[in-house]
């Protein structure tokens, strides 16, 4: 096989913009070298089986990808030292401390509380004039409130978190000093909160992690702080924008919304289809090869940066028939939006419950929900980690 030395120029698209014609690019070369905006050279992996193989193969290392000197600005700087940027066995040691709090059974027990938060937020929206900003009024406070309660973080500090989290995740074009300042402030905040919880433990995940630190020395003080930040950031930016992007998809498919209104029992399946079809992620987290690895018919040499294009897995026609068709009745549960392997999203089940309850509430209680501005006027934050809407102005009721 000849080595293809000329990388393909590749610019990830925002939702609503045409995606690069990845099907044409990847038809003959499912794994290829690409030049990203800014000149960074990476290997891109496409197609369901290749993406899945890459995610479960530990020769693709996250730790190497976020190592000093390698890490890209923004959320990747934060990932170093968090479970998101570690390999086994260090990753395993930390992840198992929190895994039991996020299992389907434990999360199912939180469902009534999630429902109640959904209803409170919708009550508040109904009591205010239209149009309303759904980001501020619903999609952000819902998952933020849930993860704060799980962790034991005062929900009154939410505004402060959003500011930090926005700086860290929302905009990679900020200069790195600003990001490092936000990180330092967030670490400082959690350092203080950990001392408070240490003195007065409560029935929450932070207190449990502090006990794991103090009683059995299973994580360092720094790891404890980073874990709390990881759970807080990971626990709300993602779900909030998945709600936003799901709504945008549904606005374009009124026939599908009508099916969900007629039979709310379809909602859990629809959530999987929404997860499959909406492009939440911009550039996916990179991995670095620990040795030469054969994948998709090519050999990627050791030490190269590699990214899985999850959208191509979720629209692989060999797995999802007529993949560009949005169909709430389709069985889409094997999408790879939550990843696979050791970094499979810790909060996947929590996100599912939040999304299910959110859409039961929005579709059931706000009939006629629609955009108050043309879709082209919606602004995404210029970050690349998560497609994050600044505002989502909506109306509801009779037009």
């Amino acid at each position, binding site marked *: 096989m000849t080595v293809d030395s000329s990388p393909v120029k590749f610019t990830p698209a925002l939702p609503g913009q045409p995606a690069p014609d990845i099907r044409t690019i990847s038809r003959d070369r499912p794994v290829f070298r690409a030049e990203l905006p800014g000149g960074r050279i990476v290997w891109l992996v496409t197609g369901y089986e290749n993406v899945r193989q890459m995610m479960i*193969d530990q020769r693709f290392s996250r730790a190497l990808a976020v190592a000093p000197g390698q890490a890209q600005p923004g959320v990747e700087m934060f990932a170093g030292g968090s479970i998101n940027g570690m390999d086994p*066995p260090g990753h*395993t040691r930390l*992840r198992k401390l929190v895994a039991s709090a996020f*299992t389907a*059974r434990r999360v199912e027990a939180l469902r009534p509380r999630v429902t109640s938060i959904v209803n409170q937020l919708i009550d508040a929206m109904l009591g205010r004039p239209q149009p309303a900003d759904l980001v501020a009024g619903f999609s952000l406070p819902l998952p933020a409130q849930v993860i704060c309660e799980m962790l034991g973080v005062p929900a009154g500090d939410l505004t402060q978190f959003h500011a930090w989290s926005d700086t860290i995740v929302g905009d990679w074009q900020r200069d790195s000093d600003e990001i490092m300042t936000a990180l330092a402030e967030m670490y400082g905040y959690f350092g203080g909160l950990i001392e408070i919880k240490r003195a007065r433990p409560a029935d929450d995940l932070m207190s449990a992690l502090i006990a794991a630190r103090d009683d059995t020395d299973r994580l360092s003080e720094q790891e404890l702080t980073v874990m709390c930040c990881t759970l807080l950031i990971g626990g709300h930016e993602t779900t909030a924008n998945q709600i936003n992007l799901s709504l945008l998809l549904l606005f374009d498919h009124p026939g599908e919304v009508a099916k969900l209104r007629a039979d709310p029992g379809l909602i859990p399946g629809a959530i999987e289809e929404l997860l499959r079809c909406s492009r939440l992620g911009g550039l996916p987290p990179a991995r670095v090869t620990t040795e030469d690895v054969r994948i998709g018919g090519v050999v990627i040499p050791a030490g190269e940066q590699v990214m899985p294009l999850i959208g191509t897995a979720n629209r692989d026609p060999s797995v999802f028939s007529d993949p560009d068709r949005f169909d709430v009745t389709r069985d889409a549960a094997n999408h790879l939006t939550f990843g696979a*392997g050791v970094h499979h999203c810790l909060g996947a*089940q929590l996100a599912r419950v939040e999304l299910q309850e959110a859409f039961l509430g929005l579709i059931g209680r706000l009939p006629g929900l629609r955009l108050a501005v043309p879709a082209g006027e919606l602004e995404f934050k210029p970050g690349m980690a998560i497609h994050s809407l600044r505002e989502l102005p909506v109306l509801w009721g009779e037009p």
Partner: protein
Amino acid sequence: MTRWKITVDKNVCICSAMCVALAPGRFVLDEQQRSGPVEAEIDPDEEVRDAAASCPSEAISLVDADTGQLVDLD
């Protein structure tokens, strides 16, 4: 003495390898990185209970070999 039957649904397994980490020697990954039990029937083992409870995709089930009842995972 009661015995536990371990089954792993390979269609549900997402290869997180948590079970291998939490109950070493009780679970093994195949070439597709999907988990399965080393022995299908074992004496009760808290590490195995912990692994089943912590599986992110709930792919592991534990059944009491005598009664056929699911083992309580809490």
